[in-house]
């Protein structure tokens, strides 16, 4: 493929400046430079200003073609303006990258003017030569573009269609125009930096879900940015911070705290920091918790200094407040549960020891009751204290006993935490009794635990078989009271204890939720 075909360049397509030969005066140059500066002041894009500067050279220097190159974000020289060169030529130059950029590279790297009278003979131009020849460019020279603080920010390049050196006039002209180019590029750079900083701040505020504001003391006005307006439920970014406005905006309970924070922040001898959490009214009448941080700007010194403004940002605190409230409820609930558990243990201890004839037996009974209560708690913790399944309650309660001697049948029935605890404790009493006096004391004795659902009712039976005959104790102990009173109360049903010939039978009937 031929070079021109590849680049889409036709020799005839090259438009070299035709405005040559007229007499150039210092006034012409000054007028042209003034025009460029005006463009710059008017805030024209840097490319437009640079293109204008290039045209000035082309207007003033006979048969010259100008190209201005600047550094891109990666530090590579790229064509910023070349109004009379084919775009394909500029693209090809740019594609060469940091190296092989001929006199442009040399000027930018050294900060010195690089003159090439004959591009065909200069190895610096080797990479560009074929392209340049194609459009009839024979000589070139480059002038570095240097800012006032001494940074090289680009190169001002000029091509000639004949092998020649720049004239002293051309050298001065480009040197002068390079200063204007440096101004344009420098301004563009600082604008880019400011835009990036604004963008960074914007993204950071967005990411932090914060809105910014500024309150000025002189007019008692607070200006909110868009995000702050949304946070404060305002339709206008200008807010008059008078009593009526504050009363409308801030929750009555939080207004004194807000004024207190303001007073502290604007104190002449304070640190000028403002921070307050308050509720603000939203457009729909609901309240939103916000946390506001600000910094006071003062005028004057020491005790005489006066607050001028407070600038700051606010953040939605609603989720944190909800989490705090949730935490408080959890702690409250935990406290309630712990108190209940302690009261239950107190009850067990009181009753276990109340009628005790023998301290050793009472100690054992008390211990095993507390352990069985703890086991039931474990079961409930697994389900986050939402409840427990009856089958699991039974399995867990009889586990410390001879589990193999139990015949357990029944469907899945969900119990509330209180019901699960009461049934666990009742089953513990029944199993303890069975292993001391009932079916679990004989070799062949078994316990049948069966339950079924009938229309809205749970029927539960504990039946010992093959044990010794048991009799109702003369004194009602903890177990029988627990089953006949506590359990039936918790279940809202009835319980019946039968002292049979093969051991205890316990029948429970309770309504199902």
């Amino acid at each position, binding site marked *: 493929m031929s070079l021109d075909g590849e680049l889409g360049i036709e020799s005839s397509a090259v438009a070299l400046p035709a405005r040559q030969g007229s007499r150039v005066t210092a006034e012409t140059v000054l007028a042209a430079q003034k025009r460029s500066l005006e463009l710059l002041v008017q805030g024209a894009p840097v490319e437009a200003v640079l293109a204008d500067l290039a045209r000035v050279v082309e207007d003033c220097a006979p048969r010259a073609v100008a190209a201005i190159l600047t550094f891109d974000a990666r530090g590579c020289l790229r064509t910023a303006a070349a109004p009379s060169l084919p775009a394909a030529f500029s693209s090809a130059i740019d594609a060469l990258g940091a190296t092989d950029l001929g006199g442009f590279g040399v000027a930018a790297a050294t900060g010195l003017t690089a003159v090439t009278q004959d591009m065909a003979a200069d190895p610096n131009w080797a990479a560009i030569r074929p392209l340049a020849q194609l459009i009839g460019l024979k000589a070139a020279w480059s002038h570095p573009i240097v800012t006032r603080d001494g940074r090289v920010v680009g190169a001002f390049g000029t091509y000639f269609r004949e092998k020649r050196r720049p004239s002293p006039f051309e050298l001065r002209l480009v040197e002068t125009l390079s200063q204007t180019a440096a101004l344009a590029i420098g301004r563009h750079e600082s604008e880019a930096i400011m835009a990036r900083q604004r963008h960074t701040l914007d993204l950071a505020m967005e990411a932090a879900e914060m809105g910014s504001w500024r309150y000025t003391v002189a007019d008692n006005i607070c200006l909110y940015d868009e995000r702050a307006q949304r946070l404060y439920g305002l339709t206008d970014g200008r807010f008059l911070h008078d009593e009526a406005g504050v009363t409308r905006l801030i929750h009555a309970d939080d207004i004194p705290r807000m004024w207190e924070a303001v007073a502290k922040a604007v104190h002449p001898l304070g640190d000028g920091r403002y921070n307050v959490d308050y509720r603000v009214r939203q457009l729909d009448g609901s309240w939103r918790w916000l946390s506001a941080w600000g910094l006071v700007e003062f005028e004057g010194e020491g005790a005489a200094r006066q607050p001028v403004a407070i600038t700051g940002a606010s953040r939605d605190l609603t989720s944190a407040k909800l989490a705090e409230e949730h935490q408080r409820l959890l702690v409250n609930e935990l406290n309630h549960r712990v*108190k209940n558990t302690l*009261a239950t243990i107190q*009850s067990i201890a009181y009753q276990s020891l109340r009628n005790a004839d023998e301290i050793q037996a009472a100690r054992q009974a008390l211990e095993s009751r507390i352990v069985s209560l703890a086991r039931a708690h474990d079961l409930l913790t697994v389900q986050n204290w939402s409840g427990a399944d009856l089958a699991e309650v039974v399995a867990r309660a009889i586990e410390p006993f001879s589990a193999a001697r139990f015949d357990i049948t029944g469907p899945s029935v969900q119990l509330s935490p209180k019901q699960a605890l*009461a049934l666990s404790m009742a089953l513990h009493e029944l199993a303890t009794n069975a292993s001391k006096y009932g079916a679990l004391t004989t070799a062949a004795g078994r316990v049948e635990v069966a339950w079924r659902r009938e229309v809205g009712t749970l029927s539960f039976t504990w039946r010992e078989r093959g044990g010794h005959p048991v009799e109702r104790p003369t004194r009602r102990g903890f177990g029988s009271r627990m089953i006949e009173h506590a359990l039936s109360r918790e279940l809202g049903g009835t319980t019946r204890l039968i002292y049979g010939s093969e051991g205890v039978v316990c029948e429970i009937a309770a309504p199902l939720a």
Partner: protein
Amino acid sequence: MTLRNPSHPADDREPEQQTMKRLRILLVEDESMVAMLIEDMLADLGHEVGATASHMSEALEVARTGSFDLAIIDVNLDGEPSYPVAELLASRGIPFAFATGYGPGGVDGTFAGSPTLAKPFLLADLRRLLSDMQPALPS
């Protein structure tokens, strides 16, 4: 009249107890184990638990129709404040005390000044409470 149940050891009883008359008490408590404890404590102090209610509807019914000298009411009945029971008792002139697991601030509103037992409490606390309430009892 004997206040001592012969089957119970006279462990921590004090002479002042002897001077109290046998009271018929309504107990409103949703935790069955705690209800059993208070029943035992009251029995050990020589009083009679006329009724134990563990639910709001049951408590309101008994408070409306029962005959009691005094009531002990758990502030919280299955997550519901038991103040309606207290209001009913107040309207009938039956003195009452609250039992609460929520600490000293557990009773609020119009009943904040009522006699209160913080759970868990001792037998001696219960005795003191009943003794303090004695002047309020109809003779």
